[in-house]
């Protein structure tokens, strides 16, 4: 359950095949757009964010993490009416942070992943809120309880998503 501190030599680094690298984020963005239209309450989940965290913690490479986050975020932005870069910036930060943390911590167990997801979900929302409000001028409402509960919901889903990602990741 606990997040254990490990040295860089102890942690395992994984990679994903090219089809998985392309198709998984695309599927996540597609499902996010499609499911939220069918079931509006599913808007609370952020599948592309979970995939970003999953990829970043598995690869444990900050550069790969930030570029993956950036691309997934911009892809997500492209489906919205907002300027491209809002999700891009937020997920870049999350991708970099998750992969950097993945180097230092053992994030293989479900408890660690659960906590990490909550933390990075809130970080993602804070960055998004600041950029959307400060730079783009969108009127955004902030509610800590809502964000925290959304974080918990995403963390629960994240545990299962990471288990699926474990099945397609390859040891380097």
């Amino acid at each position: 359950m606990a997040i254990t501190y490990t040295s860089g030599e102890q942690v395992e680094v994984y990679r994903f095949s090219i089809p998985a690298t392309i198709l998984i984020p695309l599927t996540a963005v597609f499902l996010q757009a499609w499911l939220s239209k069918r079931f509006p309450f599913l808007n609370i989940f952020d599948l592309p964010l979970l995939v970003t965290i999953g990829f970043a913690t598995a690869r444990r490479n900050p550069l790969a993490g930030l570029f993956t986050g950036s691309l997934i975020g911009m892809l997500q932005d492209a489906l919205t009416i907002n300027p491209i870069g809002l999700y891009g910036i937020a997920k870049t930060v999350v991708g970099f942070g998750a992969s950097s943390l993945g180097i230092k911590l053992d994030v293989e167990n479900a408890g660690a992943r659960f906590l990490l997801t909550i933390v990075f979900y809130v970080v993602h929302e804070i960055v998004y809120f600041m950029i959307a409000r400060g730079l783009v001028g969108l009127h955004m409402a902030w509610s800590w309880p809502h964000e925290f509960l959304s974080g918990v919901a995403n963390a629960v889903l994240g545990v299962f998503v990471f288990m699926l990602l474990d099945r397609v990741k390859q040891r380097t």
Partner: protein
Amino acid sequence: MDVLGRYRNLIVLVGVLFAQVLGLAVQVKRTTASEPTRLIRVWAVGAVTPLEKALEWIQTSTGNIWHNYFYLRGVRAENRSLKAQIERMTLEQVRLNQDAGQARRLQALLAFKEQFISQTTAAQVIGGSGSESSRSVFIDKGYSDGIRPDMAVITADGIVGKVLHADRHVAEVLLIDDQTSGVGAILDKSRLQGILRGTPSGELMLEKVMSDETVPTGELVLTSGGDRIFPKGLTVGRVTKVSPGSEVFLNIRVHPAAELNRLEEVLVVTKIDERQAEPDQTGATRAIDILAERLPTVPPKPDDATKGAAGTAAPGTVPPGSTKPTTVKPAPVKPTTVKPAAVAPGTAKPTTVVPTTTAPATAGSDAKLKTVPPPAAATAAAPAPRKPATAASATGTSAGTGSSLSPATPAKVTGNPATKPAPKPVKTDVPSQPKPQPAVEDTPH
């Protein structure tokens, strides 16, 4: 060099973030209607929407097979119920057609121009934006189907939004509950106008209604046509909450009539005709005639009826065989009341009264026409009691002339020679300055 290698990751992170912030700033500054769609949007939409279309097709096909071939329970009962409903609605339609025709005639007289939805394209909603801060949906029709930006998107229940971008086979629709959306709206009864905007939480608020106005909850909100996107008179929703705003305006929350969270099929308004309303061809086109129909009839007095029966020509009575019309000018004599008389069978021409503008009488003149006041019901949409067929044209028209157009204008009475021996001026026992009929408020579409 060593420092660069040590902080390489951080430097790249800062560089990527800086590039994205720069890109954001450029987009925010250059957001215009004429801006072309960015390539990444085209790629993203091109990558995601085919999957959405395919899934939508599979879901629809499966649903159709189930509902159209297997799950037919209760269809007969529903069919009977729908038939009964059609009958009821047919009757209602007849009444509404009459009202609409009357409204069109009045609009034509007032030279109103109204917008008609002349062409729509049905489209299916295939996906959303997947973001709470961006309320938009994708439809399966694009510019190859005639969809263009800024076209209105509606459902049978109410308005939905407007087309934001149109790709070849896909278009993005900005929903009315998005915070960047704005719709010109008007309250149905009070006719107060405002701007309908979305909030970050996805609610609809009607803005710019002064706080000293009274807006009841439950009032219908319609499009005002002021935004040049939605035609006037489309249903938007109903007022659910009214509270004082921060400034001099009210906070009016509106519940949308269309289920924006459960959209499946929508109509894109691809063509709007703006033309002047044409009068209904079946009836008279003069306002006085229209208004006269609504006015009540002065009931015939028994002594007039007796006179008529005894052969004395009462005003407005046309004896059989009389054909030559004449003009009767009201003389400045003792005013009497024009009483409608029953027209004898075989009457050649009924007496009619047409308006004249030649000799406007001054106030207090003996020749001044007075009219029977229209009751409250006559000014409302409810039809007034109908007059007898021929007497109506004599008395009702006269009343209409005086009441609606120029109350102080004498009437030139064109009638039968039989009426000539007794040219009595019209006396009325009603105010000489009646209230005009209210203009038509609702534009039928």
